[in-house]
């Protein structure tokens, strides 16, 4: 079915300011939507109150309103612009809630505006937990046992049925705000009252706790002909009980057999149909009992979400762009796969690498906030890394975080910490638990015991154990004792030069020189959606230590742009904005742009923003390796905030002699 003829003018609602639980991923999705819908000849009207976004650039929409995202304001815009359609599924929870309010107040009907993607009924089915529960149960699937409360009295009745611990989830809040786990009556009362006060509908769900179960997510797409594909599966490193946004997550799912994965896939397809998301993407979360495989459906987002951004970057399948095309009537088989060009988008990406997403916390900026992770999101940003193994991706993710940590070392753990205290720490959900897990292996605590304390799947734990065991071996060697084979193995495990140098008592440049003298250098592999089955036309690359390099650099004039890395307090989306514009400007003057970044929520890490994309940590080691292979005419360090700026001097010292030189200095006419 080609493009719908009855749609001409589309209103897109953005997500407003960045808050915890709603980061810049909706600039990514909104920008993709605006771009592709305008290309398709639609008139696009945009409202967003966040000026630090690519989507609010004048050329992104036909009309852009930088106004507060409230139903009242949006009504005025509708009145003035008279769009025939509203696409509510790309602006996060804010966009969705606003659309719901407009529909419920009869405003959409009054002005004859139809909702694209998801209708009011399906949004309600997904978002209102009692309706959701009924829908899921009608599919023959299960949700955790639960009950609703609008008052403390009702809440007391509910908990009698369930027993402690229970999870309290206020309805209609962002990022699970107000969500908590209560282990006793005292906590319960406090959390219920807080939850009731936060919920716009004064309603909380009290749910049987599945803390400690394995957590999975599937990203699902559906078109108007009812074709459904799964874009990506995600397995959480952290068990249930920690908000997905605060969990380390891994793609694809690692510890499911095909039989179990297909049960989940079948469930996801049933759910998207039953909820009635007509077109576009949804995210569905599952809990799996580690001992029996029992499956619970936890929740569904009937819209593009943070996980969609991650899934897009993890697979090369541009979920927001395709969701937009599906919303205006295209079907999956009519949309080409941008990366292979020759095959259609109606397939399920297969990946031949491992992806790790790691949340970035800033507890030091919120004194008084408990650094415990719960079901309410607390992270302010995230980094993603790609490696050929989980071990490599994990260690790359650590240095992508830009928290001055480069390994799973115990530098931040007091040597006085007793093993007893260490075990206590493993029982808590502190943000840096993984470093304590590594320390536990150093102290020869068994995988089984660590599992019992943390409920982190033994597969993940044993991978960390492998890393710690190799680290012990490295510590027993001095630099000259390391031969090429050993060096290769160490680097395959993802150890950073910086950490290895510190273990060997040499400087990082010295270590790097020694490593290179052994001819151990990274190669670059392509993210191609298909496990190399088809040729990829898009240079979307990541580093690893293997044999064949696919970087294939051009001989064109080229400039590397260093991105901003994960969001943090004091560095939001504005630097990504600058980097994206640097890429656009380079395009205008005919210089090849090469983006380096590790933040999956951004426009800069879209494979079509720059000419070439390296999804890599922004450290000296990782950037310099790209400089070595690309031999650029310059490296732009001034647009990505503090992180790349700090790299200017080391890069220049290392011989990227043109580092920090902007193209205009070479006489290109001052376009920048």
């Amino acid at each position: 079915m080609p493009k719908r003829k009855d749609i001409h003018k589309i209103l897109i609602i953005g997500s407003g300011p960045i808050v915890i639980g709603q980061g810049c991923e909706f600039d990514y999705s909104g920008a993709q939507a605006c771009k592709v819908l305008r290309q398709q000849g639609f008139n696009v009207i945009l409202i967003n109150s966040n000026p630090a976004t690519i989507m609010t650039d004048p050329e992104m929409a036909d009309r852009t309103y930088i106004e507060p995202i409230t139903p009242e304001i949006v009504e005025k815009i509708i009145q003035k612009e008279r769009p025939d359609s509203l696409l509510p599924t790309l602006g996060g929870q804010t966009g969705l809630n606003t659309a719901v309010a407009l529909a419920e107040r009869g405003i959409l009907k009054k002005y004859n505006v139809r909702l694209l993607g998801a209708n009011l009924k399906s949004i309600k089915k997904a978002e209102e937990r009692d309706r959701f529960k009924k829908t899921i149960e009608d599919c023959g699937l299960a949700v955790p046992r639960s009950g609703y409360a609008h008052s403390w009295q009702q809440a007391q009745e509910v908990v009698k049925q369930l027993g402690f611990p229970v999870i309290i989830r206020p309805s209609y809040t962002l990022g699970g705000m107000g969500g908590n786990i209560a282990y006793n009556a005292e906590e319960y009362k406090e959390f219920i009252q807080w939850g009731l006060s936060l919920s716009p509908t004064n309603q909380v769900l009290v749910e049987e706790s599945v803390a400690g179960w394995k957590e999975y997510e599937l990203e699902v797409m559906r078109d108007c002909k009812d074709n459904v594909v799964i874009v990506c599966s995600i397995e959480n490193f952290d068990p249930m009980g920690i908000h997905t946004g605060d969990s380390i997550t891994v793609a694809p799912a690692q510890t499911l057999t095909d039989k179990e994965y297909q049960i989940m896939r079948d469930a996801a397809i049933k759910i998207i149909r039953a909820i009635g998301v007509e077109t576009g993407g949804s995210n569905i979360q599952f809990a799996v009992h580690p001992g029996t495989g029992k499956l619970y459906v936890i929740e569904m987002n009937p819209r593009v979400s943070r996980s969609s951004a991650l899934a897009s970057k993890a697979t090369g399948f541009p979920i927001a762009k395709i969701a937009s095309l599906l919303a205006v009537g295209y079907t999956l088989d009519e949309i080409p796969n941008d990366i292979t060009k020759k095959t259609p988008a109606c397939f399920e990406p297969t990946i031949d690498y491992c992806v790790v997403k790691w949340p970035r916390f800033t507890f030091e900026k919120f004194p008084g906030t408990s650094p415990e992770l719960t079901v309410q999101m607390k992270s302010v940003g995230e980094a993603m890394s790609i490696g050929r193994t989980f071990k490599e991706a994990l260690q790359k993710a650590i240095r992508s975080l830009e928290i001055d940590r480069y390994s799973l070392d115990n530098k931040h753990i007091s040597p006085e910490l007793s093993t007893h205290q260490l075990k206590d720490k493993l029982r808590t959900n502190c943000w840096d638990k993984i470093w304590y897990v590594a320390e536990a292996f150093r102290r020869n605590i068994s995988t089984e015991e660590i599992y019992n304390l943390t409920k982190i799947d033994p597969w993940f734990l044993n991978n960390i154990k492998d890393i710690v065991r190799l680290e012990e071996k490295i510590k027993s060697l001095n630099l000259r004792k390391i031969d090429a084979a050993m060096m290769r193995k160490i680097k395959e495990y993802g150890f950073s030069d910086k950490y290895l140098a510190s273990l060997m008592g040499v400087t990082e440049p010295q270590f790097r020189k020694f490593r290179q003298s052994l001819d151990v250098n990274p190669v670059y592999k392509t993210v191609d959606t298909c496990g190399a089955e088809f040729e990829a036309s898009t240079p979307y690359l990541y580093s690893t230590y293997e044999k064949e390099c696919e970087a294939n650099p051009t001989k064109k004039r080229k400039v590397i742009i260093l991105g901003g890395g994960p969001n943090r307090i004091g560095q939001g989306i504005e630097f990504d904005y600058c980097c994206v514009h640097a890429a656009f400007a380079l395009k205008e003057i005919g210089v090849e742009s090469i983006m380096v970044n590790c933040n999956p929520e951004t426009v800069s890490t879209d494979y079509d923003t720059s000419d070439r994309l390296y999804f890599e940590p922004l450290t000296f080691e990782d950037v310099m390796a790209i400089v070595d292979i690309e031999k650029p005419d310059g490296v732009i360090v001034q647009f990505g905030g503090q992180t790349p700026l700090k790299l200017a001097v080391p890069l220049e010292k290392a011989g990227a002699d043109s580092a920090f030189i902007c193209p205009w200095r070479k006489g290109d006419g001052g376009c920048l």
Partner: protein
Amino acid sequence: MKAILLLEDGTVFEGTSFGVKGQSCGEVVFNTSMCGYQEILTDPSYNEQIITMTYPLIGNYGTNTDDSESRKVFAAGFIVKENCDYPSNWRNTESLSDYLKRNGVVGLEDIDTRKLVRHIRTKGAMRGIISSNEFNIKRLEQKLRQYPGLVGRDIVKDVTVKKPYLWKKGVIDVLNNSQSMPEKKYKVVAFDYGIKQNILRLLRSHGCDVCVVPADTPAKEVLAKKTDGVFLSNGPGDPAAVSYAIDIIKDLLGKIPIFGICLGHQLLALALGGKTYKLKFGHRGANHPVKNLKTGRIEITSQNHGFCVDLKSLKNKNVELTHINLNDQTLEGFRCKDIPAFCVQYHPEASPGPHDSNYLFDNFIKLMTKRNPD
């Protein structure tokens, strides 16, 4: 412990051995499924093939007693980037490397599997030898030269059952440890060219009483069993070389409802006078989009085939094309217009892979019901 792979074009990959020590020749192919390695290893269609998994982390969930697709491992060798020796899954009973050892399979890990896959994609599937006890290239080359490859050879005879048997099991629900065993309403004879057990389980769960017979069972014998339908299974190798099976199918055409999968689809096409050819590197994975030409719907399918029916060769036959692969527009299924017979190239039984095409088993039941309305 070193192991190497030598390809017929002289390319060598050196890595580490896992599974059993030894040497093994076969056609080197790749599979893009991210899970389901136990099903893949035990699929008889992989007879004489060395399988490379594109997903790098294999063995994570171990192996178990329910996920095998036949009586043993048929793959000639197994190549992965990183084998996992600490499987984690509630159904796991044995690690992948122990499983391969017990089944006598030579494994190779720690090579750049993506490089190998890109090599095969560009140069085409080719013969290779995997070795963990002999590293003299000359000697391995010699051995490899003696290996005839798949084209023109009947290797169905090596995998088919020797005697007929009755199939007893239904589809397993692994979460509730139960089987779907409805009342038996139809008698089906299944030709075993290398049949995957999930086909048999699905037939049983659709109410079929299934008798599995050797590939060379004469048509007369089959018809004498007074069955309601005949199933033509998947299997390994070059379909054109299995001439006896083609002749038997010719004798059955029009006399009884027929449903074929994979090799069964190719054999049916050949029996109708069509032609088959070898694909450059085949389709092996669980993500291939297939369009149902009748409904316009897309099915994400499980695939495993190196040979393919020439679409044009069916032009003047009395058949209707029903399914097409959207990646490369090759034929994925057809039905006969005048007689009760239909088939698909891909694997509706999944295992591993998506369940989107399960309805084809219902279609087989309908075809049998139409013929015998009771």
